[in-house]
């Protein structure tokens, strides 16, 4: 496939790997932030081809994984209401709430539908005027513009029966929180959480640009390299990051130039700003990170599913104490260090979202664990 196969080229991969091997003189731990990158690394087998000194830690950028249990339970409560059609991106359906998942709600008669875009949910709202159509607005800055656009269009078209359950999160706040928590523990860097550099999420930066990362690089003195998603893109990002580390420099670098500019997509940012404002957000397994997410601005309160169905606001849930997905998401524990791993918790019976999503760190370890690698 044109414009994709070029970035999955075996010869180019070999050349970049040789470069990386030559450049690397000591151990480095890099965190790829985005779940899409993790998925691509696992799917291409890139993780097993890297020089042994390079360790990749899977970051908290899987939107399905970090959506807090409480929001999943609210989604389940809303989807169970007879007057509601609940629509969602597909991979949220298998994420376990505290008692069940959206698949089970569907099996019990709830009207749960998979959509590819929030605009599809708008169409469902138009076609079903007697029902309230709720879209589960999750994800990072990448999905935020489309979700914001759906709210704007609903307002413009006077679609009073459309609402969103918002659980948006943002990347820079997560990077800060990870760095802060590790430094707070040991003064410098906690022994079980040592990330030397970040591969920033290319799609998030396509929307937001990368200027937001410049203060982070200064504050934490770590390289951040904007990185794409295909194997060659990822290797290029890793190579740039390791070159900085070996040279003792730290700056924001763009290894995904064909898609990302420093300023990002300004119209998309404007739409986000028009509809959403920053708020404290809970991350599954991590806890509340201050000013790390989006919520609807007050002028769009009519489209807020939590306000429209106040009964769900009271839902408060705790995570399974066995599950250490939070520590895994922070790169502080390996999945195999969890007592429930491969026992109570498997891809078929996941306790935490890192086992649900095909790109979740636990699911990846489960698959490869069986190979004994």
């Amino acid at each position: 496939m044109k414009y994709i196969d070029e970035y999955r080229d075996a010869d180019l991969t070999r050349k970049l790997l040789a470069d990386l091997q030559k450049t690397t003189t000591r151990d480095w731990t890099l965190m790829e932030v985005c779940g899409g990158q993790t998925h691509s690394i696992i799917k291409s087998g890139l993780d097993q081809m890297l020089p042994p000194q390079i360790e990749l830690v899977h970051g908290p950028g899987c939107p399905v994984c970090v959506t807090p249990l409480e929001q999943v339970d609210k989604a389940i409560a809303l989807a169970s209401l007879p007057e509601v059609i609940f629509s969602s991106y597909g991979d949220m359906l298998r994420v376990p709430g505290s008692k069940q998942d959206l698949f089970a709600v569907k099996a019990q008669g709830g009207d749960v539908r998979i959509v590819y875009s929030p605009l599809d949910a708008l169409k469902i709202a138009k076609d079903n005027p007697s029902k309230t159509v709720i879209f589960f607005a999750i994800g990072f800055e990448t999905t935020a513009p489309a979700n914001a656009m759906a709210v704007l269009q609903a307002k413009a078209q006077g679609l009073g029966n459309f609402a969103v359950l918002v659980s948006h999160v943002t990347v820079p706040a997560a990077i800060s929180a990870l760095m802060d928590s590790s430094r707070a523990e040991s003064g410098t860097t906690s022994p079980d959480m040592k990330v030397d550099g970040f591969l920033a999420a290319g799609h998030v930066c396509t929307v937001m640009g990368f200027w937001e990362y410049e203060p982070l690089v200064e504050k934490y003195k770590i390289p951040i390299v904007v990185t794409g998603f295909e194997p060659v893109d990822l290797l290029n990002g890793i190579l740039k990051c390791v070159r900085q580390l070996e040279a003792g420099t730290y700056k924001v670098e763009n290894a995904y130039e064909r898609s990302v500019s420093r300023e990002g997509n300004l119209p998309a940012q404007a739409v986000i700003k028009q509809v959403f404002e920053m708020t404290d957000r809970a991350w599954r397994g991590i806890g509340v990170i201050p000013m790390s997410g989006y919520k609807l601005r007050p002028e769009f309160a009519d489209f807020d599913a939590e306000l429209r169905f106040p009964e769900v606001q009271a839902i408060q849930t705790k995570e399974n104490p066995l599950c250490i997905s939070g520590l895994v998401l922070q790169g502080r524990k390996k999945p195999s260090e969890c007592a429930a791993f491969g026992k109570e918790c498997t891809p078929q019976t996941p306790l935490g979202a890192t086992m649900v999503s095909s790109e979740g760190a636990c699911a990846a370890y489960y698959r490869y664990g069986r190979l004994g690698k």
Partner: protein
Amino acid sequence: MTDKPNLLGWTCPRPLQNYPTIVMGHGAGGKMMADLIEHLFAPAFDNEWLGQMGDATKFDPSLWGTRDSSLAFTTDSFVVSPLFFPGGNIGELAVFGTVNDLAMRGAKPLYLSAGFILEEGLPMETLGNIVTAMAAACRKAGVKVATGDTKVVQRGHGDGIYINTSGLGIIPAGVDIGPANARPGDVVLVSGTMGDHGIAIMSVREGLTFETEIRSDTVPLYGLVEAMIEAGKGGDTPSGFDGHAPLRGIHCLRDATRGGLAAVLNELVDSSKVGIEFDERKVPIRPEVNAACEMLGLDPFYIANEGKLVAIVPQETAENVLAAMCGHEYGKNAAIIGRVVDEHPGLVTAKTSIGGMRVVDVPAGELLPRIC
């Protein structure tokens, strides 16, 4: 990865999941369905024939005193929506799906039963078109509908029409094709492009349009199988090899329906207690199917086919069998994609486009498009 959790032989602690009801994933051809069969149906109906767990069950000829051919028996139900899709319809599927299950044991399909569950309000014209298509499909596949049944359910209790077909066929003497017959050193082949049917259905269901229409690949496969069996003769595994009884010709055949190539290969490594390695780049996939999968966040190896088979054959005859496949109208794009190995029994691995390696796992339940 430095840790080595040993999960070989580990089984699911909660076989029927935590679901108190049936969910769609139980019918998706993945791990959830396998668990349902393993822990509910198989123990309830426990017997040596069901225990074969192939696409069709083989009855030994000694049962009725002959020594030549064996009988093969299978059943399948068809609940596809929409009823008509690019390249086929539920009627054709109901015939080809069942005759293909027979063909995967090397059986020549002879007779079908056809059970219709019709929903009140189904237009007579729709039913007429489906039955006409079924009749044409029967002629194409060389089978006769020998018995049938019709039931009508209340409006809202069905998707227009559900069809169940069972099939009877004859396995010629000397043919022994079954899921447990794969041996290390064998070669893995596919009969053509993967994922066409699933993407054709999805494109209609999700209202996706592509520049070129993706059509379902639904066809009857016995003709192809017959040609393969003929070409595979002479490749007999030596008697007593590896402690197993001698195996003749083609070792395993599966049609890669629900769960696609990944599900079939995983079933074969489980049944045969071997590993399989294949090369992603050697698996034929149409560019438009690949593009659709990229867009939808799906993996083409997990997408359903209705006219494609996976074959495992001894190395000595692989090239002969491949040539025979390529010479048949339903095997033009056939390819050798990998081999059976001693290592990692129960596990399927793939060499990736960049030369890496990954585990190709069983799908859990329903295929879910990824968000990002």
